[in-house]
């Protein structure tokens, strides 16, 4: 008898005694999942869970979100401000006052010596929106450098640029709810199950309820590609050719939405003229997708009642990223799929608050999608802040990817890095390392003092992680969601909001411009600035309490709006943010400036994410239950290619490119083609020692995913030692 026992054995299951649940929004990717953080009586975090009532995630979380509880206790956090004269000296602990004073002095000194723009500020997509807005005030209004940008240039700049070119404004026009209405779903260079698993789940739920075709364009057989109804394994960097050929078929067969095109678009003839050069017969040889499939996919897409496209870094991170986005917009305009349920052009953003920085940080302009180039915008903001409009530059300065080369040329002498780690994240890190050495003054502001870039800093500001602060995020579908302050900052770390406020006090304009103490007061300023006729980015109807009650509100949500629901879609009326209110069709000519595989470097080098890690692993690398799934760098390689080179599974190899070298462990799999290798980008001293990162002419976003490498055998013991040495967390 196997059931029961005479003596009962205890059943012990860890019980988390939660005294209070705090509402929060996950701080990893842009999905915008609502999380509840469970605190015990002492205010200590004991657990976390997805909020079942939030529309975005409906209780679900991905591995990273599920393990957020482990974050607060993780190693490597910054505890005190640090300071040193030279980057090769040891840090000394210092007070916040001294660290801030010293930094302000150095900024002024450098600006005084080399000009206002010689000090640059690079921010992120990881802060809260109120912090972005405050940083914008500080940099644009007080410090006054024009070389101010975010690391969002590495991920979403092409989407921003493409949206602006097509629709006259940034802002993804669709939402997750579109999955429930679409009749055809097409993903370009997006691996949802790995990168945005919760969005994938929303898609899967929709598809299980009501079947519709999923088409995935990806050079690799990802799980998404495998589960798609149609997988198009495209040649890297040729998406525009595929899109042009699809539009060729659509025009050729008269499948376009003529009425929509006439009513709501500009430049149709120009587009037709260019597209006419891309018949599928010749396009197939460039993009690697056969003629039949191009025609079939074009027909399915055009004939669908509503069709939508999503894309991520496969499009954005290329030399024609902005063009790629514009071309996806073209496809959707041509088929009349903008602003209708299930018909949209939805970029899937990377960082949790990439949208917040795009909207409010003033990185590429002024708050609320305002442009430096427009005198009325400069005046409006200067008046509101109480400063002279002439303090603002008349056009945008350098993008993040141009700031680094400007260090190389000596134009920029000082840099403030906020929550970004270029020593791991930038293409061609050997070059970045030399730039870092050249800086006269580098401030690194981060939650983690072991962030690799800190190697070169002169001052380190320890920042608080998201739930130690309060404020908002905006997600991929324009939904503003709130993070309530759940706990005190770790050790002597401070919220970024506080750091910016304190720094402002040390500049002349900081005494003129109001820097409120509370994030919600900054939010009120943003609300004020978001009002205005024809303004799509309108958050004036929101308050923190309303946002929490609604578990996120999509903008536009105007003061006059009732209830708790913002607008699900933009451009539903066919009116765009362009001068004549019509969307621009942008004819895209394909050019090929990628470094291609050749005799010397015979493999395409592709890079991307794994689900268990976020960005440069500063957080997930310390959370064992995430990190254990990929604790060291690895490379997917085709077994047939490996056999030719006598390379075995689970061995180390050395890769070389025209930039540098890297050592990785080989995972042989037929998931990648014979002439391509794939390496996750999360690891320090790895893929970006090899990458080229040619810049997109419009967005200045680097082409991380297209360059060529050689693979060679390496002494296994030496490689193992190197691998261990490079993994200090």
């Amino acid at each position, binding site marked *: 008898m196997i059931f029961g026992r005479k003596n009962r054995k205890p059943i012990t299951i860890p019980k988390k005694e939660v005294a209070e649940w705090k509402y929060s929004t996950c701080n990893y990717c842009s999905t915008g999942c609502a999380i509840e953080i469970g605190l015990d009586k002492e205010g200590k975090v004991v657990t976390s869970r997805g909020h079942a009532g939030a529309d975005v995630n409906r209780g679900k979380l991905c591995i990273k979100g599920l393990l957020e509880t482990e974050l607060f206790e993780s190693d490597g956090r910054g505890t005190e401000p640090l300071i040193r004269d030279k980057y090769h000296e040891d840090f000394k602990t210092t007070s916040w006052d001294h660290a801030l004073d010293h930094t302000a002095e150095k900024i002024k000194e450098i600006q005084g010596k080399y000009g206002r723009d010689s000090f640059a500020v690079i921010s992120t997509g990881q802060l809260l929106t109120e912090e972005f807005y405050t940083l914008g005030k500080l940099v644009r209004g007080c410090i006054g450098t024009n070389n101010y940008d975010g690391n969002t240039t590495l991920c979403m700049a092409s989407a921003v640029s493409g949206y602006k070119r097509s629709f006259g404004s940034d802002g993804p026009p669709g939402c997750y709810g579109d999955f429930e209405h679409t009749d055809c779903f097409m993903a370009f260079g997006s691996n949802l199950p790995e990168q945005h698993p919760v969005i994938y789940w929303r898609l899967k739920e929709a598809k299980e309820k009501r079947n519709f075709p999923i088409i995935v364009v990806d050079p690799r057989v990802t799980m998404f590609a495998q589960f798609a109804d149609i997988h198009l394994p495209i040649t890297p960097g040729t998406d525009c050719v595929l899109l042009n050929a699809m539009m060729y078929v659509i025009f050729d067969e008269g499948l376009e939405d003529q009425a929509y095109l006439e009513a709501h678009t500009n430049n149709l003839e120009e587009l037709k003229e260019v597209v006419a050069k891309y018949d599928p017969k010749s396009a197939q040889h460039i993009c690697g997708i056969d003629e039949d499939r191009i025609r079939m996919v074009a027909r399915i897409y055009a004939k669908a009642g509503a069709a939508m496209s999503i894309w991520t870094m496969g499009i954005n991170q290329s030399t024609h990223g902005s063009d790629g986005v514009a071309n996806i917009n073209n496809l959707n305009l041509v088929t009349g799929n903008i602003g209708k349920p299930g018909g949209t052009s939805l970029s899937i953003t990377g960082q949790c608050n990439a949208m917040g920085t795009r909207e409010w940080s003033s990185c590429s302009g002024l708050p609320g999608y305002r442009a430096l180039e427009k005198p009325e915008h400069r005046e409006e903001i200067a008046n509101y802040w109480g400063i002279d409009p002439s303090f603002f530059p008349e056009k945008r300065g350098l993008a993040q990817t141009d700031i680094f080369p400007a260090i190389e040329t000596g134009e920029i002498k000082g840099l403030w890095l906020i929550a970004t780690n270029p020593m791991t994240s930038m293409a061609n890190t050997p070059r970045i390392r030399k730039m870092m050495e050249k800086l006269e003054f580098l401030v690194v502001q981060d939650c983690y003092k072991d962030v690799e870039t800190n190697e070169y800093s002169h001052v380190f500001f320890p920042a608080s992680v998201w739930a130690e602060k309060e404020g908002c995020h905006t997600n991929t579908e324009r939904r503003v969601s709130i993070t309530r302050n759940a706990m005190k900052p770790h050790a002597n770390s401070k919220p970024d909001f506080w750091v910016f406020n304190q720094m402002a006090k040390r500049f002349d304009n900081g005494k003129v411009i109001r820097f409120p103490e509370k994030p919600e007061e900054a939010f009120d300023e943003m609300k004020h600035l978001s009002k205005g006729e024809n303004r799509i980015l309108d958050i004036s109807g929101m308050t923190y309490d309303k946002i929490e009650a609604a578990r996120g509100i999509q903008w536009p949500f105007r003061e006059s709006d009732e209830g708790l629901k913002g607008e699900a879609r933009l451009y539903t009326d066919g009116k765009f943010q362009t001068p004549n209110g019509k969307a621009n069709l942008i004819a895209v000519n394909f050019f090929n400036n990628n470094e291609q595989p050749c005799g010397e470097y015979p493999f395409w080098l592709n890079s991307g994410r794994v689900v268990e890690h976020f960005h440069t692993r500063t957080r997930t690398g310390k959370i064992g239950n995430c990190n254990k799934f990929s604790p060291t760098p690895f490379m997917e390689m085709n077994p047939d290619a490996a056999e030719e080179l006598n390379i075995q599974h689970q061995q180390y190899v050395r890769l070389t490119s025209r930039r540098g070298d890297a050592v990785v462990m080989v995972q042989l799999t037929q*998931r990648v083609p014979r002439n391509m290798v794939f390496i996750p980008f999360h690891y320090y001293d790895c893929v970006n020692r090899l990458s080229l990162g040619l810049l997109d002419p419009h967005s200045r976003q680097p082409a991380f995913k297209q360059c060529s490498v050689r693979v060679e055998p390496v002494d296994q013991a030496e490689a193992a030692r190197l691998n261990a040495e490079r993994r200090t967390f």
Partner: protein
Amino acid sequence: MFTVKNIYMQATDKESSGVSMVYPDAKKNDENSKLAALKEQGEKSSLWEIRTEEQDYAFLPQTDHENENRYGQKIDLVDLTGLPENRSMFINENPEVGCNPDRNKQHGFFFTADNCIGCHACEAACSEKNDNPAHLAFRSVGYVEGGSFPDYKRMNISMACNHCDDPVCLKGCPTKAYTKHAEYGAVLQDPETCFGCGYCTWVCPYNAPQLDPIQGQVSKCNMCVDRLEVGLKPACVSACLGNALDFGVIEDVPENREQAKVSIPGFPDPSITRPNIRFQQTTTMPDEMQRTDSMPVKYHKDEKGNYKPVVDQKQGKATHWNFTRLSSAENPLVLFTLSAQASIGAFALPFIGAELNIPAMMTFKASALYVPFNIFCFGMIFFGLFMSTLHLGKPLRFYRGFNNLQHSPVSREGLGIAVFMTMLAFNIACSLPANTWVMEMAAAIVGQDLVDYVPVELAATMATVFAYLALPASLAGLYYMNKCYRIPARPFWDHWQVGTSFFGNTLSLGAFLAGASMAAYAVFTEGQTQLIFTIAGSVMLLGMVAEAIGLSGHSKSMNAAEHEGAAAHYIQSTTFGKSYVLRNVVMALNILLVAVLLISDVSGTAALVLWAIAGSLLIFTALVSRALFYVLVIPTTMPGAFFWKNKGFEQHARDIGLANMPQVGVVPDGH
């Protein structure tokens, strides 16, 4: 094909052929109202806090269920066991009885392999809920893959405990740490009872029990019975992002699912334990599915469409020595089994020989050397048991090893060996009065002859009685020692050669040790050396031949097999190829040597030297064989991933020091 859908349909047909007709809408309404009632009750429970606005996907559906599972066993566990309803599970000592109306039905997981994206959400939700450190996981996702770019397919498999109908873990556990509950049919384990022998991790085909080398105990999936009690699905299921993992009363096919198979590529033979898991896997997979972990196993589709494990020659065909790698964490068990077998054999030979009136043996038994010899045998068995205790995660709990005599071969083996040791000790004690050395020494100490005070005759009789009792106990111990390794989940072991090896080594090692002692005594007393050589040598030869026949049969079976045993044999022939061949050659030559010694008339010093050589070679081959036996075994575990649950990476991480960082999820050596 036999699918649950068929049963389900038939059952529905039966119902509908009855008096009342149930309309689908009415049925759905009924289900919904049952669910609403359950939610309302669940909200009030103190067993688990249901999230505000919890979604329907998290709740167990309130549908109709089958009466019997596909093996004909009742699903209602009250009916099956006769145990009462409404018993509290006392989760965390909370006496509340859960409100789940199906709590007395066997539950199980439902895995739609067509859908799993390998996102680790199930694993993360499980680890978060159970506070598991990185190196432990109650649920793990691995994968198999096949095809050629772009016609490539990967199938992820998420696997935890299957709460089997026939829980081999429960039966194998010597401490009775496992209970199969009439509530949900959950197989739960109490880490506080466990002494960390790890035997459950050997017998489970799915790698469900997790031995924590740091804590020195096992823990495992608890089915989230706290959530089940309030009507919620387990945390892993509720977290699934691919709509792959589901849970419910066994044989229920979830909404929108059309198949319920008991196997998918990479999943072990379900007949071993009758696991409570069902699968949907409708996508056509390539004929050959490979594992990315270091196990030299892949899965090949047979003519019926089922996937069978076959050898994947990942290490190539080159042969190596890897002699140092023969030393493993199982070294204590190598020493335990060999010394126990040697002790049993060595004790038995002179005793039985003397009882059979073989003069040389009678002389030896009657001599003063007999007690020291038996003390030596006792020392060996004591050393063996000590070694096996050291092997435990919590050695101080060794006494719990006899808790499960009802089911566990480990308990029975332990009891047999312990009784043997005790009887041997009594035998030694009772042999003391008849021993001249002892009596002389005692007399010297006490200053008086003790013979008058001790019933010498009675003691001698008792010694014989205890020796007779020791013999069956030792045989039972040996038999169950052999049974311990006849594990279906470890096909390399599950072969009759375990018996020939264990009994063969008992004969050969025992005969050598006893023969050497008796021969030494005979030489010293100018006794019948040759007779001892002949008898002990013959027994030794018999044992060696038995072992050799077993090993040869084993090698033939493994070569022909289509399971993990074949893969283990492949490793034996490649990674350890040279050591393996050396062992075989030495064993064959040694058999020849002993045979020649037995039929030739070599005597004197030459005989002594040659027998000593034969004995040394015997010990060498026995050690190598036993070490290979433990090092080589490849269990029928689930496929791993590239890093996680990949033995090859784990070893590498230990070798290069990565394992010293806890977040790598590999426990470093030295625990």
